[in-house]
């Protein structure tokens, strides 16, 4: 849906004004439309995609490449290491070894079509990175295409048994997601097609709202027992990830580390979804830029930074974002929406079908309708067929390669021969908000709001 806001134009009050009419800054057209939509629906709005407001972002940070005090590497000539190992903490037989510190985050079959899942798996395998099942169980095509597949154990436990556990290259215990912390997944009935229903053991066509609380553990102490059970069941062959939404990051990361996570995935409020009560997208969690530094510090305070790996997701859309996340302390980033956009999400094709949904390329967030015009977030066979797996996989592979080229170029400009050597000292903030959240100085100052000056 397009924003109903017009330009404020030249008017001294700075308030929106249209042909002499003044719009209330409080009850603007967006707010009026919200209320009237709810007055029709009788419930909260549901939508896909990500949030609808501006927040401080990794974008508000800049790097300080080498000049006089540092020596840069030749960006176009010298090499820069990108290999990333996740999950060696408890000595499992097969830690996840990625060729790059970027992987495809958890997105379910159900939210996504089978061929979108297959294309993401194929792209990840071509790159040498991993994908994650998301909550809908383990799709056979995804397992086949993905050389490294993280199997997500959500509270709903779809398809979870020994057979599927042992097919996984890592287990991710999901404690929530950045899009809607504290609330379970949502899959509208239009997408609960035959195969989706079967994999989730659900009646076909119901509006599925998944559980949020795990059925057999509640806190860090019993989670520790649970993680040990998973290690025993997998004979300690594979690492255990714990994914959490970015809320009380310092405390939550410490509890997950204490409970025995090998890898902690922190999903910022930008984290997207196939469907969510819309207000949760805008009003829950903290931005990714704030989550990374806090998570790193939490692990440092426990003496576990570097031993427990940190993955960050939520709104990562470029190599610059990824490099900043690494500099702030992440070992890797996971991408979701950016990978879907590379697949074809919001591509300017099949425009009539966008129009039928009341939207247009560049504005579509209609994943929840199950009528995705480009065949990604749908279970309709005719729409699904619009996504060619090989061509889509090629685009995602290209995009991740482009991200990694951006990361390595940035690292070399900062004088680093390994992207993991980027550090928060390499960063400055363009806004006071980002400086306070990322715990890096405001550009041109030594000031980190809320902290003593470093020097």
């Amino acid at each position, binding site marked *: 849906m397009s924003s109903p806001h017009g330009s404020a134009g030249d008017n001294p009050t700075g308030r929106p004004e249209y042909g002499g009419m003044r719009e209330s800054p409080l009850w603007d057209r967006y707010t009026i439309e919200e209320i009237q939509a709810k007055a029709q*629906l*009788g*419930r909260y709005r*549901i939508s896909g995609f990500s949030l609808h407001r501006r927040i401080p972002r990794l974008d508000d940070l800049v790097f300080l490449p080498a000049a006089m005090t540092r020596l840069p590497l030749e960006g176009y000539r010298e090499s820069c290491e990108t290999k990333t190992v996740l999950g060696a903490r408890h000595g499992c037989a097969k830690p996840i070894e990625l060729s790059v510190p970027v992987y495809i985050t958890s997105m379910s079959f159900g939210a996504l079509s089978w061929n979108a899942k297959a294309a993401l798996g194929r792209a990840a395998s071509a790159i040498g990175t991993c994908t994650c099942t998301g909550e809908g169980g383990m799709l056979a095509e995804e397992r086949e295409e993905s050389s490294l597949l993280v199997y997500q154990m959500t*509270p*709903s*436990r779809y*398809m*979870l*048994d*020994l*057979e599927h*556990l042992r097919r996984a290259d890592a287990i991710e215990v999901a404690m929530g997601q950045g899009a809607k912390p504290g609330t379970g997944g949502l899959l*509208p*009935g239009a997408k609960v097609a035959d195969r989706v229903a079967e994999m*989730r*053991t*659900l*009646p076909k066509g*119901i*509006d599925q709202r998944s*559980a949020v609380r795990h*059925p*057999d*553990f509640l806190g860090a102490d*019993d989670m520790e*027992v*649970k993680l*040990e*059970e998973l*290690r*025993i*069941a*997998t*004979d*300690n062959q594979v690492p255990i990830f714990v994914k959490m939404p970015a809320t009380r990051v310092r405390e939550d990361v410490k509890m997950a580390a204490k409970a025995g996570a090998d890898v902690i995935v922190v999903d910022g409020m930008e984290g997207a979804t196939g469907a969510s009560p819309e207000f949760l997208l805008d009003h829950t969690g903290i931005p990714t830029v704030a989550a990374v530094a806090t998570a790193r510090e939490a692990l440092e305070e426990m003496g576990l930074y570097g031993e427990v790996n940190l993955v960050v997701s939520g709104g990562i859309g470029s190599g610059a974002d990824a490099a900043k996340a690494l500099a702030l302390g992440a070992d890797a980033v996971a991408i979701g929406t950016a990978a879907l956009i590379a697949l074809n999400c919001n591509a300017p094709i099949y425009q009539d079908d966008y129009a039928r949904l009341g939207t247009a390329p560049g504005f579509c967030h209609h994943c929840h309708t199950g009528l995705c015009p480009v065949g990604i977030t749908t279970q309709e066979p005719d729409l699904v067929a619009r996504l060619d797996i090989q061509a889509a996989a090629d685009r995602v592979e290209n995009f991740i390669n482009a991200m990694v080229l951006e990361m390595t170029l940035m690292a070399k400009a900062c004088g680093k021969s390994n992207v993991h050597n980027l550090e928060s000292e390499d960063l400055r903030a363009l806004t006071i908000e980002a400086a306070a959240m990322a715990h890096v100085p405001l550009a041109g100052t030594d000031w980190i709001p809320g902290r003593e000056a470093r020097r």
Partner: protein
Amino acid sequence: MNRSDSAVRTWPGVPADAVHLDADGLDAREFNRKLQELAQVHDLLAVDNPRARHNLGIGLETGAAHIHFLGSVGYYCGGFNAGAEITVHGNAGWGLGEAMAAGQITVRGSTAWSAGAGMRGGTIVITGDAGPRTGIAMKGGNILVAGTVGFMSGFMAHQGKLVALGGAGDALGASMYEGRIFVAGPVAGLGADAIERDLDGVDLEELRRDLAQAGLAWPAQPLHKIEAEGRLWYFDKHDARIWRNI
């Protein structure tokens, strides 16, 4: 083998020719590794001194020995069971037989929270009482309880059958999909969207067979069948008042 507390007792139903494994002195990983090795070569195992430790008998597969735990077990006993037969001669902690796909677990005692959580198949028999959230998120199989089940049992059950012959706590069968609950005796209250329906001939036949196989007596009090009404399955503004308060 050391002389131990559990070894000197006699355990009804445990054959004398069972091969014994002493859990004392082994951490959970070592214990499970040894148990898996022994379960592949013997038909009948008895575990001495389980001492309510967690994670005993995890991920056992079809063809494994029948395993008797001689005493109480802790959390997640028989978790990810893929076909083994397990008998616990004592009580069990949280998450007994969670994510089980096949096999049978019998507890000659009572269980704590969340027995059979998310199970996809197989049978759990509990001769005592079962705690809260028994059969939560279950997706198949049977849970047969001689006594009571605690509050929120059958919560969000997808499929499968939960039978409680001694009554149930509050919020029984809350927010289920296609699971079925049969309960005899007092029920403190039904959960959201749970509704009582009449038992049919198929139900009765199944229950007679299940209880007979489990060695449980037919209850003196009448059985009630609880299912989902399905009013929470769809977002419909006419049901907004139901949604609002749950």
